[in-house]
């Protein structure tokens, strides 16, 4: 199945792209999508303990299941305001 991955701020810089399409075996979790990314860009692992995850633009958990066509976003610590 195919998911859209969104990366922001320094995560985007580390991967060199803010939006990626990735194929992951079903059934999948957000964690499985993340593992696919860190296999490609090990430097992303720096964020494993501090980032947040969103599925279809709602805050979620790494254990959440993801479906074909979902958008999975990985968010470094926020700095708005």
């Amino acid at each position: 199945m195919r998911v859209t991955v969104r990366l922001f701020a320094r995560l985007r810089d580390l991967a060199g792209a803010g939006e990626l399409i990735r194929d992951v075996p079903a059934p999948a979790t957000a964690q499985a999508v993340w593992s696919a990314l860190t296999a490609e860009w090990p430097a992303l692992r720096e964020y494993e303990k501090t980032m947040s995850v969103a599925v279809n633009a709602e805050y979620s958990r790494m254990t959440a299941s993801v479906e074909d066509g979902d958008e999975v976003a990985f968010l470094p610590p926020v700095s708005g305001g």
Partner: protein
Amino acid sequence: MAVPQVAVTAEPLEIEPLIALVGATGDGAVVTFAGLVRDHNQGRRVRFLEYEAYEPLAVRALERIVDEVKARWPAARVAAHHRIGRLEIGDASIVIAAASAHRADAFAACRYTIERVKQIVPVWKREHFDGGDVWLEGATADPDDDAAREKAYRIACA
């Protein structure tokens, strides 16, 4: 066009429409906050900031904060607009207006809102300073973190 209660926009921010939006006849207080781009940070001379957002989630997070305010201070109303894109020194990156019958609730609702923005709204700023640039990173965003929510509440009511 009607002024939205929450927004993420690349346009310059204005506080007056937010005041008009939240204010009601008979209110005793409106408190406003504008966050501005500072010319220095952690000993560095800042040239400008670049803000980015995960826009649909940022809007939802702002709506969530508005709902939290409503639950904590039922008599208060709050509105908040966040700007993204390149901002120069002195530009407003966020404006918040909170209205209520009495000043204590208006101050608290306004302060709570900015504290929660910094905790859970997916916005990031890249600081361009003399000699380089760096993504600033604050809080790990988790809207269900009760401790973070309580901390914002304590600060708001200090």
